[in-house]
């Protein structure tokens, strides 16, 4: 009995390729041939679950990137405030040297939680020292910026945890999809034991080799028809 030879998706095949190539091809072929409804349902279900978690992973990646950018911008704001404080204290060199014992560079170097600690140190030292009145507002700004950085670092850490969770979930669903795909191959071979070419035809390797990562599509224009009849286009646009 001749056996069908098909290329099954390998471990590490991107989810986009599993969905856009493997799933689409198999489902299309099975529907056209109107065979194996159980296999269609199973592959649809596995593809749906994979698609759902793929979109979640894309979203968490966007959010983690955004959280990182927000945290970095808060760090830059603090750097500016430290520079401003250093400049303001330069009128009293002994005071400046007591607040910045290792120089400006040492206070600008820390990042993340270490930067928060350095700002707390600066606030503490300046609180105890007699600083010019002109410095007070800079210290208030620096304190507020430090609070913001603290919350953004926390958000960034949480966003990365969410990203790791969705990446792990995506891998689990990709594995489940590959298993369902192999199961469908077995099921179809059982349905058509003497027609290897027919079975192979369902699983024909899709022509595309690479798949662009999916992202939000461009927005289609507002629907211009209602009940099959053309609808008037709103002349004025306000927001609700």
């Amino acid at each position: 009995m001749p056996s069908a030879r098909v290329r099954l998706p390998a471990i590490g095949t991107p989810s986009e390729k599993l969905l856009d190539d493997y799933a689409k091809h198999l489902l299309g072929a099975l529907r056209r041939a109107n065979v194996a409804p159980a296999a269609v349902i199973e592959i649809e279900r596995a593809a749906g679950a994979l698609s759902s978690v793929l979109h979640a992973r894309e979203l968490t990646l966007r959010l983690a990137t955004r959280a990182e950018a927000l945290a970095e911008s808060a760090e830059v704001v603090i750097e500016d405030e430290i520079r401003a404080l250093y400049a303001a204290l330069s009128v009293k060199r002994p005071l400046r040297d007591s607040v910045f014992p290792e120089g400006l560079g040492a206070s600008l170097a820390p990042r993340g939680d270490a930067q928060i600690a350095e700002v707390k140190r600066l606030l503490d030292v300046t609180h105890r020292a007699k600083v010019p009145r002109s410095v007070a507002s800079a210290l208030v700004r620096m304190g507020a910026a430090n609070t913001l950085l603290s919350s953004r670092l926390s958000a960034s850490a949480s966003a990365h945890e969410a990203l790791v969770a969705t990446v792990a979930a995506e891998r689990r669903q990709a594995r489940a999809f590959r298993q369902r795909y192999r199961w469908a191959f077995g099921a179809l071979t059982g349905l058509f034991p003497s027609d290897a070419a027919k079975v192979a035809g369902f699983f024909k390797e899709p022509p595309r080799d690479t798949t662009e990562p999916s992202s939000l599509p461009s927005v289609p224009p507002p629907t211009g028809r209602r009940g099959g009849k053309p609808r008037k286009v709103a002349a004025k646009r306000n927001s609700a």
Partner: protein
Amino acid sequence: MSDWWESLVQIRRADHKKGTGVFISSTEILTAAHVVTQGNAALALDDLTLDIRFRSTLAVPRAVAILATWAPGATGSDVALVRVEAHSDLGLSLAFGVPPPSGSAMLEGVGFEAESDALRTPSGNVECRVTTDGERLLFSDDFAPEGGMSGGPLIAGLATGVHVAGILTRASSSGFVGLSVVASVLDELRSRFA
């Protein structure tokens, strides 16, 4: 099998104002109350156009439910459900308690900006503050919804997929951006359809 963004709806009113909504089941669109009301009352169904933009089709409204406590300018009750004819494969699932009370989470707001009809997806760290009435208000220093995005979802990415965690209602200088989805509020809205 539909992609999550296919559940987004642009809501256009007869007075040319616009808002956004999202299918949370095959027959329910979640949005802000001020998008589908005039004063204290729901707009007539004929005054609403529910455009499922990514399907290039319209949903037919059957009923609008708002909370008894809703009044123009209210914050915590600015939520509504619109019942429509069934679109079997649409509907984003909900995530309750994201962010948790007094906690924060990175969320993405999604809505159609009124002027250009373009999809906007601002995102940032969103904090949940609970009022003495138990309302869960959402605040963010990182973004503010633009006109037309009212009623759009605030979405969260979880290991189970993309979920609606809240809705955008309005922007304010305090950083107020919207409301968390709360099961009891949805139950009350659903009971008002009956």
